[in-house]
């Protein structure tokens, strides 16, 4: 099963490489990874998605917690949460296609953020499944380039991940 693990770590050089190194060293999967500083510049928030059996996920969270720079960690998939991924996608848009892509973008509540006579660049946010569906709807034949941010997320309700 896919899990979203989100953690706060010291915003220090080398911290990210320790997290990533742990995954290759112990033969764990990383499906996606996103990281940036928080409102407290001494902390970074890192969110990753990984796939594994419950025992493996338990080891992953324990091993991550052991890293000195990791301050706090949560497995978002264990409770109600909001997850989002951002995608920018460049699509061939000529002739009748232009209207069709515009319509599809509206249906998915995306935005066209850049336009040329032959290309639309669409911005879309949502769950990874939604982004996958958009790609399917547009059809890979007309897609020129796709860039996705990787999943980020936050727990629903009062629960917060903070120091």
């Amino acid at each position: 099963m896919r899990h979203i693990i989100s953690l706060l770590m010291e915003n220090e050089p080398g911290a990210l490489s320790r997290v990533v190194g742990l995954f290759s060293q112990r033969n764990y999967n990383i499906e996606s990874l996103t990281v940036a500083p928080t409102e407290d510049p001494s902390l970074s928030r890192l969110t990753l998605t990984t796939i594994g059996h419950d025992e493996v996920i338990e080891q992953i969270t324990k091993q991550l917690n052991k890293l000195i720079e990791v301050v706090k960690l949560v497995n978002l998939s264990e409770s109600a949460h909001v997850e989002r991924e951002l995608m920018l996608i460049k699509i061939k848009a000529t002739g009748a296609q232009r209207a069709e892509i515009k319509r599809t973008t509206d249906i998915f509540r995306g935005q066209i953020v850049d336009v040329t006579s032959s290309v639309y660049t669409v911005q879309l946010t949502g769950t990874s499944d939604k982004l996958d569906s958009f790609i399917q709807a547009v059809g890979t034949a007309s897609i020129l380039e796709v860039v996705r941010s990787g999943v980020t997320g936050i727990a629903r309700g009062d629960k917060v991940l903070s120091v």
Partner: protein
Amino acid sequence: MVGGTDEVNNVELLSGAEMVVRSLRDEGVEYIYGYPGGALLHIYDALFKEEALTHVLVRHEQAATHMADGYARASGKAGVVLVTSGPGATNAITGVATAYMDSIPMVVISGQVPSAMVGTDAFQETDMVGISRPIVKHSFMIKDPKEIPEVIKKAFYIAQSGRPGPVVVDIPKDMTDPTQKFEYEYPKKVKLRSYNPATRGHSGQIRKAAELLVSAKRPIIYSGGGVILGQAAGPLTELAKNLNLPVTNTLMGLGGFPGSDRQFLGMLGMHGSYAANLAMHHADVIVAVGARFDDRVINGASKFCPNAKIIHIDIDPASISKTIRADIPIVGPVEAVLSELNSVLAETGDKPAKESLNSWWKQIDEWRGDRKMFPYDEGDGSVIKPQAVVEALYEVTKGDAYVTSDVGQHQMFAAQYYRFDKPNRWINSGGLGTMGFGFPAAMGIKLHYPDEVVACVTGEGSIQMNIQELSTCLQYGLPVKIINLNNNTLGMVRQWQDMQYGSRHSHSYMESLPNFVKLAEAYGHVGIQIDRLEDLKPKLEEAFALKDRLVFVNVAVDPSEHVYPMQIKDGSMRDMWLSKTERT
């Protein structure tokens, strides 16, 4: 002390190099094991003026790490290593990995090329922080000389607390510039918001463990290196004695319970005793303390101890339920948890039912029989059996030596036949299995405990991996005793080839061995050759009587001997070869 004083504020002004040396002194470090080089010259110059620190110049950086490691295992304090950039750092890697696998506290200070040259493939540059990342508990690179005291304080704190381990501090040369002076103050304490190792176990879990334990019919204690590192031999022995429980130790845990005690069943696992492995297999409650259910202990994980409920006590939550699921996990320092468990049991006065415990002991005594704990074919005396050498060593040293070993058959024989009654006396590379470990480790112990007997049990394969340190021993007067079980062959490799590869001895035979007696003499030491069984004890006595000399005892032993018992791959704990022809 070197450095100036700022008259106004009355604080000392030191260069980065001086701060490194001074911080080590203020941390209470006595010994540094190292090797100088370009990136370290400022630090070595500061060290030249510092009298409180003893520096040991090794002949190879790997030996420096093993010396620091041996010191740490015997004393419980972090060993300190000083190596230069590039090859100095990479040579230290094997020793850092050795310490990491056995959770040994160590601080490795490595020189680095100047900051401005980092990343340019400069002369003797290597990314030490990167190379060591998977094998350290933590690492630092100094970015500002002012950080040095705090980083060194943190390094020792991290290395020695929680589950211990090695910490690397990489210092670019410009950080130690002798012309740049900064205010120096060594912090008394450090706090890391992201690092808070448990200081006690969960009381509710401890109560549950006590209840399970007193309800047990066939209980056993399985304890490991965590009991040695966590200084918990006292409360562990109290628990075992109070409830009359059988005890088995892992290779790393020997000495955590007195080896000559009636309740001790011997080491367990791949080369564990018949009684220990059978008792584990049939147990209904296992108390695992500071042990990590290593693959060399549990044999086939799916067949492991089918009827047992498991109480697992460990400082590291990641060790619990990693390979074998624990029924009652308790995270905490083993000493604190065991002490609390003992007081809970004392409070209630509950004990396992006497009748069931008596029949359990009767069963165990049947398994033990009146044989030796590790029986072997003693032969007709025409050749010396390696087991007999360790038995003789035990007698000659009255069971009270610090014994180090390398890796292979001799290591297993030492673990099986030397009965360790005290913790911290048996020093070997259990996790990484590093050949070349034993001799430098013995040197580190001897330096710290000059009045104690320190013996390295080794083989002709392992000893040659760090034999250059014979030179260091002469320079610093380190009269360790080397007991070389010389069978002209890489014994453990050969054993596996005998058992699993149709006796095709592919590259396990050592030809052109040196004359070890003459070699020892060439380095200025004493060499003793033993070829006949009747000479074994008298010549060992002669060697240990030479208290102020390093003695290299080369014993010609039977090359065809195997280590038994040996668990049968992927089987249960009780599936073992007992000799070349018998199995369970």
